[in-house]
């Protein structure tokens, strides 16, 4: 049922990589999922075309640019339990349209002040669109490309700052791992990577699954679970 929209007002923050990782885990867990590639560069559509055998069973990748995106999202939402949307990473009018479809908006950022400012722009847009669509649009900001070894002082500071102003954040960040990028280069889904391809595929899988678990808990909290992030 949920439409999960990855939105960012700038590129290069790991939006597409995160969308693919989440969609892969959902499909792998048995939930039919449509991954809507609304980025004009069509990185996900190209990935699926170049490596059709890498698309996990249960995952459909659909390219949809501009006005077509809303229609494709609407069609997918009545067909599959999960729709994951990768919007263009710019201040595009389509971000507004995409957010209108979101049951959960996920805003990726890296640990820089510039990214924090850009994330804040998307949060403001969500708040405006809540009034337009007359409903709450749940959202979370999350960090990408974080170090598995150590949390930098800068990252901690920005994280604290965002929480202080009431921006809800995911507890799980997607770490800097070659395994998240490799599917775009050599094909294969996250689950198909071998130790010969990347040093520790299991760590990336566990990270992606923890990410998906937190997303799932936001969409459908377990009765005994505490509310995350808010």
């Amino acid at each position: 049922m949920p439409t999960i929209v990855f939105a960012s007002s700038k590129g290069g923050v790991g939006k597409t990589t995160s969308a693919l990782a989440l969609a892969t885990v959902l499909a792998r867990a048995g939930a039919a999922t449509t991954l809507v590639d609304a980025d004009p560069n069509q990185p996900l559509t190209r990935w699926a075309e170049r490596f059709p055998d890498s698309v996990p069973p249960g995952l459909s990748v659909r390219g949809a640019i501009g006005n077509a995106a809303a229609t494709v999202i609407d069609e997918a939402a009545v067909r599959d339990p999960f729709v994951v949307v990768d919007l263009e990473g710019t201040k595009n009018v389509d971000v507004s349209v995409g957010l209108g479809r979101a049951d959960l908006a996920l805003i990726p950022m890296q640990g820089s002040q510039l990214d924090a400012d850009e994330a804040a722009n998307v949060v403001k847009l969500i708040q405006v669109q809540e009034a337009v669509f007359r409903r709450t649009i749940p959202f979370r900001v999350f960090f990408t490309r974080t170090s598995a070894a150590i949390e930098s002082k800068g990252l901690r500071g920005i994280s604290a700052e965002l929480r202080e102003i009431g921006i809800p954040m995911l507890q799980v960040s997607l770490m800097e791992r070659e395994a998240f990028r490799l599917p775009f280069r050599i094909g294969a889904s996250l689950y198909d990577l071998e130790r010969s391809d990347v040093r520790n595929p299991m760590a990336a899988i566990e990270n992606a699954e923890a990410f998906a678990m937190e997303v799932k808990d936001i969409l459908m909290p377990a009765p005994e679970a505490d509310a995350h992030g808010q």
Partner: protein
Amino acid sequence: MANERPTAKLDLGGFRPKPAVEAPVDETTQLRAIEEGKRLGFDREQNTGPIDGRVLRRRGNVQMNMKVAPETVQQFKQMAAAFGDQGKFLAELLRCYKEHGHKKSKDS
């Protein structure tokens, strides 16, 4: 090796597709959403301005000429520009047609 790992214990059984009767966003609301977004700087439009087809051409492909309406040419060029590559865009259109067949659009 990664394939040997058991699937994540994600219980997604409670999630279902949205009911088909649920109305999609009406056009007025969508236009208002776009206008409100523009006020916050989310104003970049897709496919603006005339596209020079030469920038989209690639070497190694063969030429295909056909007579079509000027507005079709313009629409194709704009969409192909957004897609990034004319040839691949046409291939994508063919793939979609092959996958979905001919469906009458709502407008027709």
